[in-house]
């Protein structure tokens, strides 16, 4: 008997080490890049960097400023994020929650991974405002605690060997631990606990799957649910603000890109360019005005919504889709709007049920 308990304990212990970052209910294993394996020390270093405001030109903006744990790792109620000196960009801060599962990063997917993404905001004039990454390296090399941590995590010998890639890898490692599942929905769907969701939410889930057509892009699977297809879609959120001059705008943007203008900068400082969406990355017509499908997990915590934060509440988002991608029924849609967005004909009850369902996607605090 004793022996059996001992071996079970050993197995449990073994598992907790192997999967120190075991996924909550409803999520698949977090993809970890081969060249950036997780370690406890690296995650701790990443967390410290993530929360450190000294890596901004004014010394008061950190990653956590716009990705605040208390606000679902976003920055509601701001429409678009506020960086140094109260400057605002053009995009609503996407949550870091479950960003680890995304096949690309940023609303337009311009970085393939969290490592690449994490370097951008430091040197964006409306985010953390540094000229380049040098001040960060100077700081972490000089700071005794940082240097000790970097040395240990990456096995560095000389301070000059510490590069921005190490900083990015540590931050990305930390971000890969910011995952959330285990919501009432997960209990309802994956453990068959029928009491986990309210009757309204259960009806709302059915709207989500059927008449609402939500699941087409906010995908759910047999064993897990990420609520995103990691693809790009033109919903007609604010595209009409540029539809008069798309040709000249697209041409100018592609020319700027060919001339070496930094994409990060032009996207966050030029409202019109920002509306081109995924197109600025690929230069393909099919990506005009298209933005990445965000996850819906914890969506109740991350208002306002859409790439520009232009829709305030979940009720308004549901109305927007119900009207076929316009705020007011009958307003014009642009010619590049993605197939599949169309008036849904949901009743008021169905809309309320759908919102009730979306609120079941909030994970418990830990």
């Amino acid at each position, binding site marked *: 008997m004793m022996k059996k308990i001992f071996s079970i304990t050993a197995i449990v212990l073994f598992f907790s080490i192997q999967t120190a970052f075991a996924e909550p209910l409803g999520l698949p294993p977090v993809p970890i890049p081969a060249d950036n394996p997780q370690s406890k020390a690296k995650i701790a270093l990443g967390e410290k960097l993530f929360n450190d405001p000294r890596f901004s030109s004014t010394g008061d903006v950190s990653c956590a400023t716009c990705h605040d744990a208390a606000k679902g790792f976003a920055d509601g109620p701001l429409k678009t994020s506020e960086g140094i000196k109260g400057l605002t960009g053009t995009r609503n801060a996407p949550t870091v929650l479950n960003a680890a599962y995304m096949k690309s990063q940023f609303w337009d997917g311009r970085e393939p991974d969290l490592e690449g993404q994490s370097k951008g905001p430091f040197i964006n004039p409306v985010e953390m405002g540094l000229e380049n990454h040098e001040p960060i390296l100077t700081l972490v090399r000089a700071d005794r605690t940082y240097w000790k941590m970097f040395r240990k995590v990456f096995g560095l010998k000389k301070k000059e060997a510490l590069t921005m890639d190490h900083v990015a890898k540590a931050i990305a490692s930390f971000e890969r631990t910011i995952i959330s599942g285990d919501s009432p929905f997960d209990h309802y769907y994956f453990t068959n606990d029928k009491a986990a969701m309210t009757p309204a939410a259960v009806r709302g889930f059915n709207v989500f799957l059927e008449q609402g057509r939500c699941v087409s892009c906010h995908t759910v699977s047999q064993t897990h649910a990420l609520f995103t297809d990691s693809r790009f879609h033109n919903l007609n959120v604010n595209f009409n603000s540029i539809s008069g001059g798309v040709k000249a705008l697209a041409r100018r943007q592609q020319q700027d890109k060919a001339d070496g203008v930094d994409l990060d900068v032009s996207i966050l400082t030029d409202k019109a360019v920002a509306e081109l969406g995924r197109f600025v990355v690929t230069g393909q017509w*099919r990506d005009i005005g298209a933005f990445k499908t965000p996850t819906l997990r914890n969506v109740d915590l991350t208002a306002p919504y859409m790439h520009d934060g232009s829709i305030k509440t979940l009720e308004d988002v549901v109305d927007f889709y119900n009207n076929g991608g316009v705020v007011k029924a009958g307003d014009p849609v642009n010619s590049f709007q993605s197939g599949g967005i169309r008036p849904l004909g949901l009743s008021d009850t169905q809309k309320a049920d759908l919102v009730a369902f979306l609120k079941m996607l909030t994970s418990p605090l830990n």
Partner: protein
Amino acid sequence: MSIINRRTLLKTGGTFVAGACLPLTNIRLAFADQSQDFTFAYISDSHIQHIKGTKFVRNWDQGLKRAVAEANLMSPKPDFVMYGGDLAQLGTREELDHGFEIMSALKHKTHYVMGEHDYYADLGEYWSSQVGKQYYSFDHKGVHIIVLNSILTDDHWTHERWANGTERMGVMAGLDDPRGSPFMVGAAQRKWLANDLKDISKDTPIIVFSHSPLQKLFKNWNFWTDDAELVQAILQPFDSVTVFYGHVHQIQYNQIGNITFHSVMATAWPWPYPESYAQAENHMPHLTVPINRADPFFERDATGWQYVDINSGKATVKFSLTENEPRTVSYDAKRGHPVDTKYVSRSKPPQNHY
């Protein structure tokens, strides 16, 4: 010196070379007579479908609107736009008017080909009143361009079988309707064609636009023209002939003697490839590397439009596909037939989906 060898000396004009959007669409051959080169856009098979009142099927509307909006972004502008037929679904005045209205947003000169869905309600009467001739020819930058109405069929079927035009249209609109009838160009147009080409020198590049394939690929779905051999025989004496056709809603290309065949995509919906119907024989060109089976979950999957560069009379077809990777099919002088520039072999298809 073959075109392939000369290709190593390709130059692209201007500094604007980034990405697939708004490129200088025309790649020019260094030694060729550039005054003979041009680009045109090709939009086809929109199947505008009337529900009632002012309501039309939104999905098909959006397909055409998108193609028009994208064609308007072309830089430099195309010399003209060809519309490949089947603008309407049931050939009604409402559908044709709605289709023409969407097309009117195009900033380029537009020519039209007759499709069976435009024709069989009233035998092309309303379409002709809006567009003009059903078959015609013109010259453009050294190329002789011919437009045929290839979706005619025998008089008995057309005039004797049906209670009215609506019934006739309904039958012809069903691609797989066994009561349908094979398409043909017909004796009158073949005579006109022979006469039209009488004084054209044999080294003048010829481009023919038709709605049906002008070759016999799959009778079940009218991927077929009954007098294809007779039409081909009229075209065969010319050094370089390229036929463009709609109707099939999928990428096909072929080479028969001197004639190169290219199909174009539909803006409405994709048809399956004939191989996917297990109960009937097909004669699909072995050259064609098919595109993937459409994913129904993406409404615009396997639809799109295309633009075509004509260099020294030979075509490079660039497919702009809303939900798929772009494809390019280009005449390969070494092989003497068109090839997909990326997917040369059927054994290596672009996608392996079922």
